[in-house]
């Protein structure tokens, strides 16, 4: 198990190194000079040159890459070209919104999807299954921003249980923060829950047809006992894969929901930075997201091994 974890860890570090190279150079080759952009089209060439020197844009690319990576390793993400504030502070503020939101949404989605998927699989072809599958079909089909607007209309405007947008901040306490993230988290979670429930159902149905389920019944387990003791854990592998992918999506892809709820999240930050050619912020946020995705995949790999002993011994 330890060897397996170490192997995955090595692959994690290699992935991060490759990703940082790709991100840096892809963004570098994108057209548009940040100094020129900041000073406007009519700026004098020597002013632009001075700003380039100040921003550290005049040294060779390789040196800038190494400076950037070295800085990130020590917590220094550089200074935003547009706002002239440390990128680390900007990102940290946003991360405190996006990360809890993603975890919150994923928790809701898992809590809905697992019971729904297991219920549907256990009642395959019967009314309960048809109802759950119909609901998930809807969940997959409805765009989450429309759903978000409906949530606002019902729970914020009519019932006044939640505020329609904005983020209260964590300094007012955990509850206030969670409260303002609840509607966005639900809006993000439902389509994910629909997909996850379908994966759970089909994965479990595959397992229910396996020989060892019949063996379990021959030992005297009831249908339900066999399902819980032998079915669910075996069905988890594909489900874990999807959960990993969904987390990545929730971190980076929440921009529309952030827009609907006026949340100061990473999605909006990256959008604004791209429009302003604030390349250092874009690089840092993208790198951060890549880091998050790779770490999540690493955790998913560890979870696979925890679920399936065959992976532990394979290495």
């Amino acid at each position, binding site marked *: 198990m330890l060897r397996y974890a170490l192997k995955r860890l090595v692959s994690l570090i290699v992935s991060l190194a490759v990703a940082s190279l790709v991100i840096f150079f892809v963004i570098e080759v994108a057209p548009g000079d940040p100094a020129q952009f900041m000073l406007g089209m009519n700026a004098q060439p020597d002013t632009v040159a001075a700003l380039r020197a100040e921003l550290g844009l005049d040294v060779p690319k390789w040196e800038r890459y190494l400076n950037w990576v070295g800085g990130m390793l020590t917590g220094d993400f550089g200074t935003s070209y547009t706002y002239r504030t440390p990128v680390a502070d900007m990102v940290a503020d946003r991360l405190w919104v996006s990360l809890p939101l993603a975890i919150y949404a994923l928790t809701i989605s898992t809590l809905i999807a697992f019971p729904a998927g297991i219920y549907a699989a256990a009642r395959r072809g019967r009314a309960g299954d048809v109802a759950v599958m119909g609901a998930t079909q809807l969940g997959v089909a409805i765009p989450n921003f429309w759903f978000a607007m409906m949530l606002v209309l019902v729970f914020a405007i009519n019932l006044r249980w939640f505020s329609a947008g904005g983020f209260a901040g964590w300094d007012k306490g955990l509850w206030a923060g969670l409260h303002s993230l609840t509607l966005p988290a639900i809006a993000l979670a439902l389509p994910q829950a629909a997909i996850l429930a379908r994966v759970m159902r089909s994965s479990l149905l595959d397992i229910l047809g396996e020989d060892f389920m019949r063996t*379990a019944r021959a030992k*005297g*387990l009831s249908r339900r006992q066999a399902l819980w003791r032998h079915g669910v854990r075996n069905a988890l592998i594909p489900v874990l894969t999807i959960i990993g992918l969904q987390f990545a999506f929730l971190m980076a892809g929440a921009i529309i929901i952030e827009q609907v709820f006026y949340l100061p999240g990473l999605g909006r930050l990256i959008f604004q930075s791209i429009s302003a050619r604030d390349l250092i912020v874009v690089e840092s946020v993208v790198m951060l997201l890549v880091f998050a995705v790779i770490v999540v995949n690493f955790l998913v790999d560890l979870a696979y091994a925890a679920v399936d002993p065959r992976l532990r011994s394979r290495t």
Partner: protein
Amino acid sequence: MMTDRQSRDRGQDMTLLSIENLTLSIHGTPILRDVSLSIAPGEIHAVTGESGSGKSMTALAIMQLLPNGAQATGHITLGGTDILTATEAQMCAIRGRDVGMVFQEPMTALNPVKTIGDQVMETILIHKALPPDRARARAAEILARVGLPPDRFPLSRYPHELSGGQRQRVVIAMAIALRPKLLIADEPTTALDVTTQAQILDLLKGLVAEDGMGMLMITHDLAVVADMAHRITVMRTGEVVESASTPDLLANMQHPYTKMLFSASTHRVDLPARPAPTPLLEVRGVTRDYRLPRRHLFRDHGTYRAVSDVSFTIDRGERLGLVGESGCGKSTLTRAILGLEQVQEGQILLGGQPVFTGHRPNLAMRRRMQVVFQDPYGSFNPRHRVERLITEPFHLLPDPPKGVAREEAIAEALKAVGLRPEDAGKYVHEFSGGQRQRIAIARALIIRPDLILFDEAVSALDVSVRAQILDLLADLCRQYDLTYLFISHDVSVVRSVTDRVLVMQAGRIVEQGPTEQVLTNPQHPYTQTLIAAAPVLPDLGAA
């Protein structure tokens, strides 16, 4: 049926399981009709028949684990309980405690994510027979009893760490953990090698004798049950055709179907004499290594030697057999001969030309060989018509026949294997397993190859169908002077259709010679074990 009635009249105690007039349909399709049989404590009752005879459904009916839509009438009485009227809760209490069941496929019968100890313990815990700490000790005892002592096979092992035979022992341990009155074994050794099969059959026999269990043994292989069952019931298409004590049945078969089954099991074909020897395929010192996954980042990957220094020759017109157990390198050797893989050492020549040149198969040689595989269901594309399936080898030819010549080639190949030219327009799902294997042979024959490889080509077939296919092979030998390599784990089949035989163990040829001589007077200890382990039907003289 008189004997059954008499034994029942002697009192309930004598009968452990009694099935009376069991009729079963699934979604309206009749599966079983008027099946009656009974088992006394300590008795081994074998139910045999070909696929579709309903033998497995009979077993599942006793367990009440039938597929959805099953409708059963009649009576199944187990130790005084009427199974067909029992509630699901009552059945859960009976399964595992009063009846244990062992299945055919040990590779998939165990949950891959739970330890063997937990899985054996579960039988005990689910029936609340013992508290958890004592259940663990009991599981260890039972595993030791089925031949998996805890010092060598700790309870913490997972199924993937065990071989097929060892897994089947775990399945048996789960089934007998609570000393059930009845043990149902559904083809328990069909998926195992002969030597493993012999060990598992011994184990089952021993358990029945020691515990006084009744055992219902379901098998398609008469030889397996002939020296072990007290009583044999023969089924065909959902009905019992004959049932008698084993000595009676063997000595005095009544029903023509039973007679046919026995004669098909021992079927010997009449091979034509082979022509004067001129070498066709020469295998010289062939070794095939596989790379193992790297165990350590900075250490060299290991290699696994699947075939080791193998040499033999097949003469033109010769029928050569290759026997060995799973994992001995038979399939690797087949792929090497077909030129599908490069070998690390040695040479394979067909008619003096290498089958593999440079880094790819030599197509000129490739078109002179064809192969017939084991699975008549999986080896065809279900969306193509027979005509297209059997002309697949044409793509190997530089100038494949077209138009009328193509039609004639198709018709001839189909006629040669006993099908009709009109069958060319059908899809494979319209054919039975035996017919599909004929199509596979037609596909191999159509380009008139110099050499055909039969890779377990009759292993998946029922005995009666197998006998027909073997006869077909003999016919084809007469018509086309076939040369083939017949690969099988089944010694009796190889005996019947080959002139010479190679015995392979762990990648090496350990013995070779004329088939009859090697199989009746084996020299190598491995060949001796293999032949001793293979179940044989008693010589029935006139039958």
